[in-house]
């Protein structure tokens, strides 16, 4: 009984960064905004004076969003999570957070890169990268919902193949936007469950 309890607690400690849903909500919003950015760029006439700015500004946009999101998530965790269920320091093992960021960055960067260099359908690549990344995270953190998100990503990549104008960027912002919204909604459900299971207990102090 001790070993099974210990196993549960160690797994929970490992995935604690994702326990409240804030990271998923933040990542979901980021992906959705990137999809909007790409869609806006695609809709813009190339002769427009804004086109060059929008076209080359995506990396900076992602970096700014990522940094802002990171600060926002930290503040929310201080106010909401740590006061309810305690604090876990991830600096020592920052790779836990790092891998999630790698999955997001790869899902955005690789399809664009492979589309331009190898002319591979970007939507399928995005669907595969997010799908595999989420499956790995689901296995590592023993979090079933990541498998669900991975499956969603695969399905979106396949559906994008059948959409009109699916080639190139049109399909990728369908996948990014759909996956982003799915992740944000999943994060909201996780947050709701977390708040119900972890009411603020003011008698818990040090």
């Amino acid at each position, binding site marked *: 009984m*001790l070993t099974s*309890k*210990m196993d549960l*607690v*160690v797994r*929970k*400690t*490992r995935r*604690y960064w994702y326990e409240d849903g804030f990271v998923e909500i933040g990542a979901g919003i980021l992906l959705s905004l990137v999809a909007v950015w790409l869609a806006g760029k695609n809709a813009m006439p190339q002769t427009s004076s804004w086109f060059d700015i929008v076209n080359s500004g995506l990396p900076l946009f992602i970096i700014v969003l990522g940094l802002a999101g990171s600060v926002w998530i930290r503040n929310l965790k*201080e106010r909401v999570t*740590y*006061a309810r*269920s*305690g*604090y*876990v*320091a*991830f*600096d*020592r*093992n920052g790779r836990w957070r790092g891998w999630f960021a790698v999955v997001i960055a790869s899902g955005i960067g690789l399809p664009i890169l492979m589309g331009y260099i190898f002319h591979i359908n970007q939507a399928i690549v995005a669907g595969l990268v997010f799908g595999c990344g989420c499956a790995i995270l689901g296995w590592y953190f023993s979090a079933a919902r990541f498998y669900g998100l991975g499956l969603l990503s695969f399905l979106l990549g396949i559906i994008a193949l059948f959409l009109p104008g699916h080639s190139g960027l049109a399909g990728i912002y369908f996948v990014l936007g759909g996956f982003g919204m799915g992740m944000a909604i999943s994060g909201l459900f996780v947050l709701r469950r977390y708040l119900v299971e972890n009411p603020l207990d003011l008698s*818990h102090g*040090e």
Partner: protein
Amino acid sequence: MASESLSIQGELRDIIALDRVIHEPARTLIMAILYTADVDFLFLLRETGLSKGNLSSHLTKLEQAQYIVIEKTFAGKVTRTVCRQTEAGRQAFLNYREQLRRAIDCLPR
């Protein structure tokens, strides 16, 4: 017969040699958590299910053995007590895990 007796004595030594500081269910659980990450008092309180006094007592024993350090920090205006496993503590935990594995292997099936 003599060699069997010596072998049993060797196996008993493995069981007797278990680190008594870690070989207590609550402290084993605490060390397992701290082996995974640095955490604060509230997290340990919730995950171990111990009372505040009981948890403090176990943390004190681990601190006295220099297996953990307890640091009071500030997060804004809030005090936070963070427990961190020392290098000696990590090694002791790994040794304990190996000793326990050997001891369990000795038990009759």
